């Protein structure tokens, strides 16, 4: 009975919430579809490819020696840093809409670069670099979008990806993963503003890894620049401690 009561209450609430959406987007859709094409050429917005470069600085904690086989709680840890740079090649955009005015699109995010080995303060560190390659693909859905002086969009999506980096203490060389994403885009006075969040709930080789990738960027014509923050948490299987790695980076890109 409780389940039924919850279901009815939720249905009424959902109906009240979605009733305005049933009418409003339709009246706006025709104009929006035209505007969508008009804004294509205005930078980081509707359909875009971009090529650029990035630089990232990494810091984090790891079990001493980066030993994955640690177990128990209160494991002695050490701080480490590393840095890397590389090239970005990204494509994202929308090309159609559903019956309910949700924009349909996709994205392909590719990175190719190199990262130094993890450097522990005061330790004996390898003078070594590792190649890094990442490719993520996802289906994107523009759930909310509006026109006007501050045209914008909120989208979400799901997809999968893979990356290859031999220098991470917490991960195998290669890994595949599913990902969920959210993105907010705004066009304010000819400047495109963009914020995105990609969540990796787990990876194939290392199921104890969670990754949160944030990106904020501004676009002025063909010039795109922004910052990235990636937080990776790892709790190795036999460990009760959580180890966190943070990467802060910047990128500049040319959009076409």
């Amino acid at each position: 009975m409780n389940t039924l009561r919850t279901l009815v209450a939720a249905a009424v609430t959902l109906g009240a919430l979605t009733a305005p959406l049933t009418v409003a987007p339709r009246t706006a859709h025709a104009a929006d579809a035209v505007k969508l094409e008009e804004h294509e050429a205005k930078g980081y917005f509707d359909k875009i490819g971009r090529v650029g470069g990035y630089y990232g600085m990494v810091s984090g904690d790891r079990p001493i020696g980066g030993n994955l086989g640690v177990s128990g709680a209160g494991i002695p840890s050490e701080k480490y840093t590393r840095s890397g740079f590389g090239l970005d090649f990204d494509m994202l955009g929308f090309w159609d809409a559903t019956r309910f005015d949700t924009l349909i699109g996709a994205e392909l995010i590719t990175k190719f670069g190199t990262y130094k080995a993890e450097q522990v303060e005061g330790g004996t560190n390898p003078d070594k670099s590792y190649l890094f390659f990442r490719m993520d693909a996802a289906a994107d859905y523009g759930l909310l979008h509006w026109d006007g002086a501050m045209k914008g969009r909120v989208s979400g999506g799901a997809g999968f990806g893979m990356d290859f980096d031999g220098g991470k203490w917490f991960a195998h060389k290669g890994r595949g993963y599913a990902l969920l994403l959210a993105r907010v885009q705004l066009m304010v006075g000819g400047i495109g503003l963009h914020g995105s969040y990609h969540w990796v709930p787990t990876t194939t080789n290392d199921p104890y890894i969670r990754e949160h990738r944030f990106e904020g960027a501004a676009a002025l014509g063909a010039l795109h620049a922004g910052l990235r923050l990636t937080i990776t948490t790892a709790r190795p299987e036999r460990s009760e401690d959580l180890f966190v790695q943070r990467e802060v980076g910047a990128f500049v890109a040319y959009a076409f």
Partner: protein
Amino acid sequence: MTRNGLRAHGCGALAVIAVVAFAGQAFAQDGQGEDRKDETAPPTPPPPTPYTPPPPTYAPSPSIAEPPPSPKKKYDDQEYDEPWVTGTARLADRFYEGGPFTGAGGPLAINGLESPVALGGVRVLENHGYLSKLFIATLMAMGQGNSRYMGSTYHRDSAGNTWRTDYYRPLTPAEREANARAMNAAISAEYVMELTVYSPSLTLANRDERAVAKGFEFYIGGEFPLGKTSGKDLPSIMQIAFVGSHITADGIFKAGEGPYPQSTTSYRAPLYYSNLGVMVRTIFPITAWAEAYVHWDLNILTLFKQQPEKGYVWTSPFRAGLNFNITDRAYVRAHGSVNGFGAYALGWHSELGVRF
């Protein structure tokens, strides 16, 4: 050019047309006059007819400030005259729907369980979407090679080894063209794809007391309109799809039942429901607000030897239920399921979701 400017130009154009028409009429009358000139005296000119220009109308013309309207988009024709709830008419269009569900039994309702397996998770449907096109196109691309197998020959060498030689030939231009046509047809077609994920973490039941389901059901296929119900302007739709499902649970069996009938107390034992086959689902509109559906998963695995002692559940569950459209964007659906012959086989599922 401003709207007032256009209006002034329109009035001017209409005035010029009116003047030309009047002059033509006068010219024609003058011509008649010339024909009669030799017979009669010069005619008296007709009294001038006062001209009242029609009310000005907006006549769009190409300009820089006001470009001509863009061609209509696919959905423009239908968006202004649709009611809040369009019922099964939505199934002719592209959309997604999904939401959390709760339930019990379902495909894991088998004899001997102490209590039905609890179901919980998320269902997502893609109707006429691009992911299903991508899926089908990928399958077709995997099946289309650049060569055709022509057969094999075998021979035995002096050392007693058997050698096999396979023969292939490249595809002819006609075969390549046929492949390309088939691929284009597959991409142009519209599909229905559905994924139901059963997750213990989304189950409302107490996992210590109840068995909970974990797994998925996947469908991809097409649809066949069955025509409109008499008296209603809403179509009935039949969907036929490929099924691939696998759901597991640690079932709680009664003493003396299940895979270990020698047991004297209730016990837990794993269950594995697998389905590989064809799904047939028919959706009947009752009103735009409600529709009934029946859904049957025909499981090819039922043709093979059943192995209940290993916990294998190879059944063809049948479901029948109702879908209520709260608005076009939100729905509640509920169905009952039958997974065999007996009260033990009954189950239920209820779901609340949104369309986007």
